[in-house]
């Protein structure tokens, strides 16, 4: 059956028709592509525009133009900074600084540790390699960190790390997905590059720093973004481990807008907008690297 229908499909368009349609297709294909692109953009942008507009709207008017829908729902027609003022008066600025500090620390310290591990998995043959990779890296990748939070909390509590920066930071440094990305990238680097340096007597650390790193910009950017966004958006662990005011992170601060007696919608959305804008500012300029990094990992 399948063969027959495939044959039919091939015959139907026919050579003669194909030739007539060519100029039309040259025009129609991009037009269709633009239509589809714009349709998709609407789905992507609608919630973001509404949330952004609503964050600049007085709380009781947040839903005013959404139902029935009017274009006013997408622009802050009753413009006010009330939500942002309230947020920052409550200490949102400190939460942004805290989260930024944590995310940058994760990228630098965690990035170094993950890159070293990825290098070992990608470039070395050693006993227990596959076993370690499967049991440690793959298994931890498959387990949702939030759902193993109870034993992790007990452990971190026994270190006395409740309400400390190390309690917030250290458990999230190692990241199996990032190790995996590094491994794939390093594995693709031509052996000659490394051999040349090794013959010159360079140590492995030296090879990593002076030969590998300079050509690894895409994977470094991609891994950094992954770690940054992961830490920037983390909620459950920071809430458990360091809920005190001075240490609150962005997502925890946002969640406080959901109260027992109702939610302050415009503050919730204002916090969400600030939470989203930081990673967006990082993603857009680096998107080229992001794609390159994955291209270079030999996944394809």
């Amino acid at each position, binding site marked *: 059956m399948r063969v027959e229908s495939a044959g039919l499909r091939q015959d139907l368009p026919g050579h003669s028709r194909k030739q007539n349609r060519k100029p039309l297709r040259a025009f129609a294909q991009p037009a269709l592509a633009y239509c589809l692109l714009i349709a998709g953009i609407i789905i992507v942008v609608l919630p973001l525009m509404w949330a952004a507009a609503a964050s600049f709207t007085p709380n009781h008017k947040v839903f005013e133009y959404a139902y029935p829908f009017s274009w006013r729902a997408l622009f802050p027609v009753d413009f006010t900074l009330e939500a942002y003022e309230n947020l920052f008066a409550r200490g949102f600025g400190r939460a942004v600084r805290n989260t930024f*500090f944590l995310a940058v620390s994760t990228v*630098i310290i965690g990035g170094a540790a993950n890159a070293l591990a990825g290098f070992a998995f990608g470039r070395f043959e050693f006993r227990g390699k596959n076993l370690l990779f499967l049991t440690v890296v793959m298994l931890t990748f498959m387990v949702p960190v939030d759902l193993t939070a109870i034993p992790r*909390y007990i452990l971190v509590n026994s270190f006395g790390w409740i309400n400390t920066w190390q309690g917030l930071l250290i458990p999230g440094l190692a990241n199996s997905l990032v190790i995996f990305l590094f491994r794939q990238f390093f594995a693709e680097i031509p052996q000659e590059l490394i051999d040349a340096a090794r013959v010159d007597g360079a140590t492995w650390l030296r090879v990593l720093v002076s030969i590998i790193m300079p050509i690894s910009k895409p994977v470094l950017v991609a891994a950094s973004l992954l770690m940054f966004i992961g830490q920037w958006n983390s909620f459950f662990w920071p809430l458990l481990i360091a*809920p005190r005011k001075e240490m609150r992170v962005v997502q925890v601060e946002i*969640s406080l807008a959901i*109260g027992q*007696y109702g939610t302050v919608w415009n503050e919730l959305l204002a916090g969400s907008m600030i939470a989203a804008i930081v990673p967006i500012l990082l993603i857009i300029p680096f998107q080229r690297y992001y794609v390159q990094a994955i291209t270079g990992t030999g996944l394809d």
Partner: protein
Amino acid sequence: MMLIRSLILVAVLFTMALSPALAQDVTTITWLTLGWPVEPIIEEFEARNPDIKIEAEQVGFNDLFAQIQVRLGAGSAVPDVIAVDVPLVSGYAFRNWLLPLDPIFTGDEVEDWLPAAVDAGSYEGTLYAAPLSTSTQLLFYNKACFDRAGLMPPGADDRLTWEEIAEIAPKMTFDDDGDGTPDVWGFIWEQMVRIYQLQVLPESLGAPAIGEDGLTVDGVINSPEWIEAYTYYYNMFNVWNAAPQGEEFWPPDIFETGNICMFVGGPWNIPRFANNADLEIEWGVSRHPYFEDGVAATPTGSWHIGVNANTENVDAATRFVHFISTGEGAELWWREGSGDFPAQQSVLALFSTEAEFDELPMSYLRTAADEATVNPRPRAVTVGFLEYEQILQNIFQDIRNGADVEESLNLAVQRIESEMAKYR
């Protein structure tokens, strides 16, 4: 270069963060609590107790219960003091998470609390959570709706029956723009799917909320009274179409914009509406409704405060709990903290003496203070309250959305029994 510089910066910041706090002879205790304005009470307490520092850990309402479960369940010594939603006292005490508090209060202090609040904060005769606030419910109405429907609004001391509400609510539901969806709705419950407000429906018909053993629900929450009570609830949304089904709005918000004619809600709305200078509607309150053939029953219970049984700072923690739950501290917490109804009779008495409450609409708080004494019905006393509450909340959502009442309550029985098995 950039990288190296940021590395150094991070290393410096990191070591700073790791270095132990400056030596001090003050005890710091942590207080796990909600997003209330906590600064005034903390400042006052610290001024009176220079040797103690309070660190507030504020979390969202939805996150509090998992916080307590994980942290106290792990045997952690932090937080030292926790906000306790009163129906959870049994469950926490059963798990030995809370310090018995009887020794820190005098007889007079205990007697100052509303007896129902003391009972609710106790488990097997021992006080585990000191009462901070209590609550009650009133019917709020928008006078314009009654005018429009050609009806007379009730007086502050009238008590409508649920049957009367069923009759007038559809008459006050208006579809002004003709799109098939009302723009003004007749009625809603403030916390429309929470057992806190809904338990008094079957209780007004005389039916209990849980079996004698505090665990059994079969034959209790699917009894004929429960089915009758929640058929009423079902009808309000699905047959009389007088109540909106969504949860993303908060009823007092749409009451203020004139889109809800009546709602049953807490006295915390009275100062809210009274202090809203932009409020255009004319509103009033009356007593909590009841079923014609039944009795008046009002919801009660609110926030208590407890001490972690594993705390390393028993003295400091209990001193704070004592301060906030009695005398001047309790008054301060009521005035500048929770804004909820106080559980101390001495503080409650301020409603009848202070001039602030002489005039309408703030005098409605006196109505509320009196309503709080009319057959207040605490929530089901069970060690598995959280399970009981959350499953019923799911079930009430289903019924509101049009699920068969009896079938839904039977599903609730199945689910709750499955959870309660672990306590048997």
